[in-house]
């Protein structure tokens, strides 16, 4: 289990002010990975704000975000939910033994055509 991070810390790391959110749900409306996520972008914003962080840290949702910034760009209030998801994800993978992607797993994921870019990106996103 991942112990909860304090809200303030996540807000500091992400630079996000969740109080700006007007709860319109456009982030979740535009999210391409919505169906794969247990918690959706708008929930990240409201749950971090209310300190309900542990479920987020223990959820696979943090690894489903594609960092495509659609939520950031389309948010009418400038909340930047993707940055908050990134902060939670970093809080998780930085902990000892929490790497989501291990070097040993990689060979099985590869095919002849996969670009290097995919591998480095995945490592940066999923591991310390």
């Amino acid at each position, binding site marked *: 289990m991942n112990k909860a991070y304090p809200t303030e810390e996540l807000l*500091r*790391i*992400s*630079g996000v002010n969740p109080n700006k959110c007007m709860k319109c749900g456009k982030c979740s409306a535009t999210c*391409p*990975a919505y169906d*794969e996520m247990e918690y959706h972008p708008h929930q990240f914003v409201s749950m971090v704000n209310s300190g309900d962080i542990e479920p987020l840290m223990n959820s696979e949702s943090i*690894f*489903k975000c*594609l*960092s*495509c*910034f*659609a939520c*950031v*760009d389309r948010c009418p209030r400038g909340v*930047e939910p*993707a*940055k908050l998801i*990134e*902060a939670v994800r*970093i809080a998780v993978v930085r902990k000892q033994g929490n790497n989501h*992607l291990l070097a040993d797993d*990689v060979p099985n*994921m590869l*095919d002849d*055509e*996969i*670009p*290097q*870019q*995919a*591998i*480095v*990106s*995945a490592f*940066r*996103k*999923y591991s310390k």
Partner: protein
Amino acid sequence: MKLSYFPGCTLKNKAKSLDIYARKSSELFGITLEEIDNWQCCGGVYSTAKNDVATKLASVRALKQAYEKGQALVTVCSACHNVIKQTNHLMKNDTAIAKKIDRYINDGSMYTGQAQVYHYLEMLRDIVGFDEIRKKVVNPLNGKKIGAYYGCLLLRPSSVMQMDNPENPTIMEELISALGGQSIIYANRNECCGGYIAMESGELARKKSNQVIENAKKAGAEMIITACPLCRYNLIKNGSDIPVVYFTELLAQALGIKGDTNE
């Protein structure tokens, strides 16, 4: 004219044609792309976390080198461009982080985002000019219907990237028409292909890529062009039955540097 050039890891391996034709084509317009010395991989994705400093070092080194040479920095790969441009923006706007990074690099002068960063497409539009390109076309595309695929990295976050209207971009469409092709506008051209999720969840990548391909095809596209090796990989891997090529290949073909790109 000489510009600094950051090719990136993939362009040296799987996406060699993105790299080669970018260099060759620019020579035709009197622009030499000078590869940055000892460049390091940008990391593929930009980390937005304020406590993530180390991942920015490679980009800052490249930016700094370009700036010290008095040159703008050009990238072709969407991912590299995204990381480098966002890092540059951060250096310009967050002095605390710029200072931290300065302590790592420790070479006597702090970098604060002074370099100019261009994506190769921006270079074509803003330095060369599409009219100039039009004049140099020897093998026009004869009205071929081509859908530009931007993906997410080129355009977003738009306040930083500032390449084009993030919801209705025109830069690749203008290139296509300069090369004599017919650009096909389709709504999913700025939606994510799935990106690195291909490693983790092939299913999601397939779904996203298919949405792009389907939308492009229904709009009438016979070919898709992209600036991103990962986009190209995802689209092809997930069964695109129309060709997906790098925009530089198309450019080189129209300029007479390369043979037909229709495989």
